[in-house]
C-alpha cells in the first residue's frame, strides 16, 4: 500500500490509545470521553469527541484512515479531521435523523429502490453498527478493528461494503455506506464543519472552494491556477 510512510506513526498512536481505553470504557460513555480527550494531544488535535465513546473514536479513526489514507497524494481522512467532522455532524439535526421522515411503520424488508426504510438514524447506525462490528471482530480475530493489520482492516471494510458480514443488529452495508458518505463529506466540506483541514480535500482534486467568481475563466479550458479558499478566508 502506498501509505507505508505514515502508517506506523498513526498505528503507534492507536496502540497507545487502545492500551488506555479498555479499562475505562466499562465505566461508561461519559468517562470514556474524558479518556479520549486525554489521548487527544497525540493526534495533534485538542478535539474531544462529544458523541463517540473512546472505543468508537478509535474505530472511526482507524476506519477512515483506510478509506482515505495518507499517501503519496497527500494527507488522508484522519489528517483532514474527518473523525471530528463526523462527531460534530452526529450532534446536529442530521445526526439525530431530524431531517428525515421517521414515522412508523418501518419496513425493514423494503426493496432498495425505496431508500432508507429502517428506524435507525445516523447516531444509531454508528452506535449500534460499531458495537456489532467490534463484537464480530473480537469473535473472529480476538482483536478490535483498530488492532488489525491494514490488510485485515481493508478486507473487513470490503466485506462490510459488500454487505457480506452478518452483524445481526443492522445490515453491514448500511454501516459502511454511512461511514463512507460521512468520510467523503468530511474530506470535501468547508472546514467550518471540522473536516478538510488545510483544505487538503480540495487541493487533492483541484476544487477552488469559496472563490465563487469565475467571470474571467468561463471559456478558457485551461488549468485553473489559484489555490482554494474557505468560507473563513483560509487559503490552501
Amino acid at each position, binding site marked *: 500500500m502506498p501509505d507505508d510512510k505514515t502508517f506506523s506513526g498513526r498505528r503507534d498512536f492507536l496502540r497507545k490509545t487502545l492500551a488506555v481505553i479498555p479499562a475505562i470504557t466499562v465505566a461508561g460513555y461519559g468517562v470514556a470521553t474524558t479518556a479520549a480527550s486525554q489521548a487527544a494531544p497525540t493526534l495533534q488535535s485538542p478535539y474531544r469527541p462529544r458523541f463517540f465513546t473512546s472505543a468508537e473514536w478509535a474505530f472511526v479513526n482507524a476506519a477512515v484512515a483506510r478509506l482515505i489514507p495518507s499517501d503519496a*497524494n497527500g494527507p488522508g481522512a484522519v489528517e483532514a479531521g474527518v473523525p471530528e467532522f463526523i462527531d460534530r455532524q452526529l450532534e446536529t439535526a442530521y445526526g439525530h435523523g431530524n431531517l428525515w421522515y421517521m414515522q412508523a411503520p418501518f419496513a425493514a424488508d423494503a426493496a432498495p429502490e425505496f431508500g432508507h426504510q429502517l428506524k435507525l438514524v445516523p447516531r444509531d447506525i454508528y452506535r449500534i453498527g460499531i458495537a456489532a462490528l467490534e463484537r464480530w471482530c473480537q469473535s473472529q480475530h480476538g482483536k478490535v478493528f483498530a488492532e488489525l493489520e491494514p490488510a485485515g482492516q481493508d478486507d473487513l471494510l470490503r466485506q462490510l461494503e459488500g454487505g457480506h458480514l452478518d452483524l445481526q443488529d443492522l445490515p453491514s452495508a448500511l454501516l459502511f455506506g454511512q461511514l*463512507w458518505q460521512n468520510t467523503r463529506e468530511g474530506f470535501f466540506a468547508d472546514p467550518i464543519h471540522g473536516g478538510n483541514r488545510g483544505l487538503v480535500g480540495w487541493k487533492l*482534486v483541484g476544487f477552488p472552494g469559496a472563490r*465563487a467568481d*469565475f467571470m474571467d*475563466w*468561463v471559456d478558457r479550458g485551461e488549468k485553473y491556477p489559484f489555490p482554494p479558499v474557505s468560507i473563513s478566508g483560509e487559503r490552501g
Partner: protein
Amino acid sequence: MATTLKPVNAVVVGFGWAGSILAKELTEAGLQVVALERGPHQDTYPDGAYPNTLDELTYNSRGKLFQDLSKSTVSIRHGIDGTALPYRQLSAFLPGNGVGGAGLHWSGVHFRIMPEELRLRSHYEERYGKGFIPEGMTIQDYGVSYEELEPHFDFAEKVFGTSGTAYKVKGQVVGDGNPFAPDRSDNFPLPALKDVYSAQLFRKAAEEVGMRPYAMPAANASGPWTNPYGVQMGPCNFCGFCSGYACYMYSKASPNLNILPALKQSELFELRVNSNVLRVNLDSDGKRATGVTYVDAQGREIVQPADLVIVSAFQFHNVHLMLLSGIGTPYDPRTGEGVVGKNFAYQNMATIKAFFDRDVHTNPFIGTGGGGVAVDDFNADNFDHGPLGFVGGSPFWVNQAGSKPIRGLTLPPGSPSWGSGWKQAAKDAYTHTLSMDAHGSNMSYRDNYLDLDPTYKDAYGQPLLRMTFDWKENEYKMTRYVTEQMRKIAEAMNPKAIAVHVKNFGEHFNTRAYQTTHLLGGAIMGSDPKTSAVNRYLQSWDVHNVFVIGASAFPQGTGYNPTGLVAALAYWSAKAIREQYLKNPGPLVQA
C-alpha cells in the same frame, strides 16, 4: 377552536413562482391578497449571502432550502397493488420550503414548450395514427395553444431576465438559436451566457455528428437587467452555486428577487410565513370556496375567509390540498374515472459522463444553473417516431451548473471505490470530466397517479399524499434510443472513457437517485371536466373560485424543464381572472 380572521379578496396558498405571480397580478387588479407560505422567511440576504452560502454540505447535502421531510412527505409505490412506503430522505426530487419555494433554489433553466406538446394526443394521432399511442397511456391535450401562451412566455422571460439566443422572431430568422424552437414575438431580454469549456466541447462534437446545437435559455442574467417590475439583476459570474442555493450575485431569477420586492410596495399585499394550509373550506353544497384553514407557527388553527382561493404550492402539494379539501372527484385507476390525482408524470433522465486526460480542463466548478449548450434533434416530435414505436423525446445538453466534490465527483468505470486507488482516481478525474444529460419526457398512464395514503400521516395528522408510479415500456424505449444518439456526441469528443447511466428495461423507479424535481400532473388542465381537474384557465371545474396553478396542470411530461411553462400558465390564468372572472365570477368554461 379555530380563530376566524377578517375576509380578504384573495388568498394565495404557497409562495413560489406561481404564488408570487398570481399575488402580483391580483394586487395590480386592486384585490387585497394574503399569501400563506408554510415555510420561513428567506431571501438572498442573509440566506444566500457570500461567503456563507458557498457551503455544499449545508445547502446541498443537508438541504437547507429543501422541503422539511420530518413534517411532511409523500409515500411511494410502484403499482396499484403495492404498499407505499414514505420518501424518508431527500434524493430523487428536492421540493422547496419557505418563501420563494423551489424557485429560490432552482437552477434557472428557462424553456418554453414545443407547440405540438400542448396538443400531444391530437398531434400523435394526426401524424402517426390513433393506434400509435399504446394502451394505458393517458396523454391529453392541454386545451391551450402556443399562440395563446406566447405573450405570457414573453412577459415571464422579461420578468425573469432570461438570457438566450433566439432563432425566429415574428417569422424572421434572427440568430443561431434552436432551429426547432417556435416563433417568438420578441428576442430574449439578454444575450446568451458564454459557453463554458465543457459546453464548447459539446457544441463542436454535436456539429460533427450533424446535430444543431444552441445556447440554452437561462434565467441567469448574462448582463445587468431591470425587469418590468423595476427590479434589478446583476450579471452572473459563473460561481457554480445555483442549484440548491440562493444566488448571492442577484443573477438567478427567483420569486424573492424578481417579484417580491415589487409586491412588498403594495399595501394590498400581505405575506404570512410558517402558515401551513390544511384545507380549502367549501360552502355547504361544495360549489364555492369560503377560504382556507391553516396552522400558524404556534400551532393555532386559523380560518382565513376569502372570495378567491389560489392554490399555487408545489405540484404535489396542490394535488394533496385538493384531495384533503374534497375539490373535484378523486381519480380511480381501476375505472379510469375521477380526475384529481390523474396523470401524474415526471422526467425520464439519462446521463453520460465523459472522462478526459489531464490536459483537458473541464473545470466543472465553473458553471451557471441554466446555461449550457443543447440540441433538440431528438426532442419532442422533431424526429420521425413512426419506425421507433415510442412517444416522446429528449433534449441533450451540457448544463454545467457547477459541480462540487461531495456530490459532484464521478470516477471512471472500474475505479476503486475507496482507499488510495480512489484517491488517485479522484485526483485524476474531478477537473477533467464533463457530464451531459438526456432530459427525457415521461408520458402519463392510467396507473401512474396520486391519492391519499391509508397509513402514513404528516405532522398535522393528515394522510400523506401517495404516489403510485413506475416506468413503462415506452419510457425505457425512448430513453435508451435517445441515449444512443447522445452517445454519438460523447464519442465525438474523444474522451478516454465514458460512463452511460440509462435505465434498463424493467428497472423500477428508484427513489434514491436524483431524477429532477420536475413532478407533474395530478390536477391537470383540459377541455373536458370528465378528464381534467381544471379548465384551460386553471380554474377548478367543480369549485369556480378555486384556481390551481403549477406543474400540477401538465397532462404529461415534456422534454424541457417545467418552470417556463408554469410561469406562462400562471400569467395566462391571471389574465383570465383579471379580465373575465372578476367581472363575472363563475365558471369561465361551461362544462
